[in-house]
């Protein structure tokens, strides 16, 4: 199963199990979304449960909050993460705080899905990585899968979660595990172990990281597309890296991070998003505080540069296996 099919399947499973689950977004109804993640749901569950929304992100999220507080479990799609900003007020000031400010009288069990990240020549309006603007908000859970199996399990867990979840889908790996080698064709998920997705209902617990590769020399903390880039870097450099796929950024699996860094004594943080005030800064602070005496070298961050996402210079911007590999060599020499 591709990640698109896995996400579609998670919707299908949950809509069949729970008639409170409703799905809507721009082009998400009849057409099934520009990436086809909701294809067929309207035909199967009816227009009142899967429908097209007006082009109004604040409207989509605001309406979802209303439905969630009524008692439904809306799972809505923002067409690209780059378009989520009009909804930011609804997410930050409303969804994230409704439980707290009403002391649990009202709650907001809602999922806001959106494709993130670059690698598709989408320029600055179809490539951004927005995780840090959500992890900085109290009251939101933030999830980013790196493969179809996790995508399905995490989405089901997100829909069942009693609180608002921001579900970020790295669009570059929708169809296959892209490792940063843009000059090579991508192997489809159907040929990959993590593309073997179980049918029916299963959950992948939120807040639990996965070890994408066990290793002894250096810990790589990463998520989304960059998991595959880091795997390629480890293979190409021969560095025995332990690659932690965080999967959920909030709540964060601090235990898994500490266990790995305490074992390897070295840590590299890799994300596609811009560097300054990125989620990597949070990871560096945690590692510094909790693994200080195990660290044998300063932590390195490999990230996007602090510029708007470029169009034609995409491959100079996108953290490549070469850049991650360089960081690995550098940290081992330190």
């Amino acid at each position, binding site marked *: 199963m591709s990640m698109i099919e896995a996400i579609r399947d998670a919707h299908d499973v949950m809509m069949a199990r729970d008639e409170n689950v409703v799905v809507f977004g*721009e*082009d998400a109804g009849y057409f099934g979304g520009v990436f086809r993640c909701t294809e067929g749901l309207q035909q199967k569950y009816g227009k*009142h449960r899967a*429908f097209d*929304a*007006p082009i109004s992100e604040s409207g989509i999220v605001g309406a979802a909050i209303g439905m969630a507080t009524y008692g439904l479990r809306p799972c809505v799609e923002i067409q690209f993460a780059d378009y989520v900003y009009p909804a930011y007020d609804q997410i930050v000031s409303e969804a994230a705080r409704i439980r707290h400010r009403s002391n649990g009288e009202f709650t907001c069990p809602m999922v806001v899905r959106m494709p993130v990240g670059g690698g598709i020549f989408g320029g600055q*309006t179809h490539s951004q990585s927005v995780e840090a603007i959500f992890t900085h908000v109290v009251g939101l859970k933030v999830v980013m899968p790196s493969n179809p199996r996790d995508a399905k399990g995490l989405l089901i867990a997100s829909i069942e979660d009693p609180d608002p979840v921001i579900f970020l889908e790295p669009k570059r790996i929708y169809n296959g595990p892209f490792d940063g080698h843009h000059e090579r064709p991508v192997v489809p998920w159907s040929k990959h172990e993590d593309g073997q997705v179980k049918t029916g209902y299963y959950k992948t617990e939120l807040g639990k990281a996965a070890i994408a590769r066990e290793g002894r020399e250096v810990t790589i903390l990463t998520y989304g597309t960059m998991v595959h880039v880091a795997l390629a870097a480890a293979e190409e450099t021969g560095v025995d890296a332990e690659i932690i796929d965080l999967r959920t950024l909030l709540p964060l699996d601090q235990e898994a991070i500490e266990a790995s860094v305490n074992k390897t004594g070295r840590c590299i943080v890799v994300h596609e998003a811009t560097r300054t005030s990125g989620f990597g800064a949070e990871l560096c602070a945690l590692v510094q505080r909790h693994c200080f005496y195990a660290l044998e070298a300063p932590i390195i961050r490999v990230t996007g540069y602090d510029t708007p996402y*470029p*169009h034609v210079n995409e491959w*100079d911007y996108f953290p490549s296996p070469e850049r991650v590999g360089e960081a690995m060599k550098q940290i081992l020499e330190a």
Partner: protein
Amino acid sequence: MTKEKSKKPVASGHEKSSPQKLSLHVPEPKTRPGDKPDFSYVRISPVGETPRPALDVSAIEIRDLAFGMVRVLDDQGEAQGPWAVELEEDVLRKGLRAMMRTRAFDKRMQRAQRQGKTSFYMQATGEEAISVAQQMVLRKGDMSFPTYRQQGLLFAQDFPILEMMNQIYSNEKDALRGRQLPVLYSFKKAGHFTISGNLATQYIQAVGWAMGSAIKGDDKIACGWIGDGSTAENDFHSALVFAGVYRAPVILNITNNQWAISSFQGIAGGEATVFAARGVGYGVPALRVDGNDFLAVYAVSEWAAERARRNLGPTLIEWITYRAAAHSTSDDPSKYRPKDDWEHWPLGDPIERLKQHMIKRGMWSDEQHVQAEAEYDEEMRVAAEEAESYGTLQALEHRPSPAEMFENVFEEMPPHLRRQRQEMGV
């Protein structure tokens, strides 16, 4: 104070509804793939019947015009009614040429995308009259805030196509240095604002720009552009509030081409009312116009521009047209609408309609038209060849240097960006 008994109306039992199961209404287009095209939902007024009001009208006085449709060209290509301004031959020739060149350019660039020379392209097929005719009533110094489908604004002023192609190819001569997605141009010298690519955000900016002109006692006006779908965004509503409150010298255009990617205009609110009607509620005079009628577009744009220039405030115009092509090169409309929809569109093709009118007036002929088409196709082929010699997405060695991505983030590059540029090793 003496206590008086309040006289509350007593509710009659008949007015109260008995409990009933509610259901959700979700608008649905009349036709889907495989269906026979049906445009009976489009309210079309007879040609020439819509009055031409005085320039200083209020929104309320002309509220009927928001629900009507200004039309000038009839089925025979004759100009009719109070909006039929006698346009000189060279204006019509210029308009036809600009529309035809827009279409020829689109055809060439669509092909270039299919050949892998660029990542993305968006055609304006079927909508050419709107941006072309509006640009023709503007003056140097006015500013348009276009969406990604107003390339006609540039063709109407004979903007150098090579500069447009260089942007589309993100090549070494691209004025935007390969930063922006193809077609998200920025040409200040042509009164063409930098297109952001996000929807509706720039509608309110057009109003603000016009307010700036009014604050400074200038004589420039602004034009905002939006699609039917994006009128659902908050920024559309902010724009109308600000424009109405401050009587900003701005033309607020809504291009209703019936489709927002796969969503028909009913999803944006076009089922229960028309988009021009939004203006009435905000106190902005509003008109609904046949957008495929070059003469109507020209006349109404001129009227709205004149209102703005005389400090009479904003005008909202809903142009009725049809998106004949796909939303973009990433879209396949056969998945959600009848394949032959466009051939049945009741307002026809803007180029064919102007051509018919000009032939009727003895200014043009079928032979000249065919010849012009070939000439423009050849012009685009030659220009594309030159642009491609400066690089395409397939010849990345010609792209602007990666070092340039660090420039113009700020006027002065802060130290952390300098360090990152060094890190990149360029």
